[in-house]
């Protein structure tokens, strides 16, 4: 059986190259793979495209990735939160590109990529700025916008438990985008609190089947959003 467990943080993320597109899980702080993001920071990559809901908090996580100059473009739904000041500064200085996508469309575009679809028509954003330049179509008397699949070279996600096959379960609202992103990337890397033995996860309750998981790295529990001790 393929060993998907990364021994070190560097092993988990080192395939990521300059210019890669990374789908990064999390909504608010739950479900953000903070350890993996730090691992990517340490690689000092350049020109990454990051797809994630928020534009980072304070100076850690995604914000650190911005601050250290690793990111060329952000695709997100909610860029302008108070705590996303690092992103704002870079954006105002013209140092980072931004694509705003409605949150449900963002989730659905990744799901479409994962499901092998070429695109879909959504009622979201019809008639708005965010539909500009996009094909529209009237279907059964209702207007829709054509949206394209959004695929990552890598997904960086956070889960609660993993078994040796890479089957995942999540914890509460830490689930959010993570299962969708796991489906939508060429290579899915999981930060996970704990690993369990084979057969400990009931096949009825697995949220992300291991077929979507390429690599996982065990972090143990940590307080989200707080500074961690270096490992």
């Amino acid at each position, binding site marked *: 059986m393929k060993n998907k467990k990364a021994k070190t943080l560097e092993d988990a993320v080192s395939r990521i190259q300059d210019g890669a597109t990374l789908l990064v899980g999390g909504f608010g702080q739950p479900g953000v793979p903070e350890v993996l993001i730090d691992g990517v920071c340490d690689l000092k990559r350049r020109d990454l495209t990051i797809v994630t809901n928020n534009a980072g908090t304070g100076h850690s996580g995604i914000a650190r990735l911005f601050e250290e100059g690793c990111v060329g473009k952000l695709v997100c739904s*909610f860029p302008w*939160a108070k705590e996303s000041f690092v992103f704002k500064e870079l954006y105002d200085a013209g140092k980072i590109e931004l694509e*705003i996508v409605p*949150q*449900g469309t963002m989730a659905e575009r990744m799901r479409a990529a994962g499901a092998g679809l070429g695109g879909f028509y959504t009622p979201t954003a019809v008639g708005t*700025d965010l539909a500009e330049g996009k094909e529209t179509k009237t279907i059964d008397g209702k207007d829709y916008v054509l949206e394209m699949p959004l695929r990552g070279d890598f997904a960086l996600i956070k889960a609660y438990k993993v078994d040796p096959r890479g089957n995942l379960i999540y914890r509460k609202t830490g*689930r*959010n985008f993570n299962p*969708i992103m796991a489906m939508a990337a060429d290579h899915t890397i999981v930060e996970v609190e704990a690993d369990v033995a084979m057969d400990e996860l009931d096949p009825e309750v697995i949220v992300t089947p291991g077929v979507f998981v390429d690599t996982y790295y065990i972090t143990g529990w940590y307080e989200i959003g707080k500074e961690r001790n270096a490992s």
Partner: protein
Amino acid sequence: MSDEQTNLLTRQQIAARAAQDMEDGWLVNLGIGMPTMIPAFIPKGRDVMFHSENGLIGMGPPPAEGEADQDLISAGKELVTMVSGGAFVHHADSFAIARGGRLDCAVLGAFEVAANGDLCNWRLPNQTSGSVGGAMDIAAGSKRVFAMMTHTTRDGAAKIVAERTYPLTAGGVVTRIFTNMAVISVTPDGLVLDEVAPGLSADEVQAVTGAPLIMNAVGEIAVAA
């Protein structure tokens, strides 16, 4: 100047009024800000479930001191709890609920609402972008959209207008408007002034509203003592 002196409802009073419209058995999504005050005012005995677009069906009140769970937050990124009978779903399923018409109601803040129900709440006209979040999906998909806001801008300009001037969030979706001055229904015939705050006249409301209000049987908003 306090709200009381000017006969304007407080934020709590607007939330309390909007809560009266939440019907038994509804699934409701609440936008960031004022709408999140609604759950505390749901009339007793009514079963209303709250959907938070980050994958939480059955959102409960903030946790008691010391009982917060760092993995349990609302779409507004506040620590919350979960009620009995709730479920966790991922983001695509959560928005399938919203876009697929399973939300009986969404209560959203607004910069501007037009007489045809156009909702504008994601971007200011002088900004090049905004934080859209899930507003467009939820506004486009919900069975009903209630706008909840101050009746005018701080400068006293109308936020309820004949035709929108702000960037659109979703066209023709607002069904009712709850403000610190009035409750207004959006109908095919135009805006209907249903209720005014105690001490205000219908004409006073019309004076700060940018679209004509139909006034048939204007009631008074019931405000708890």
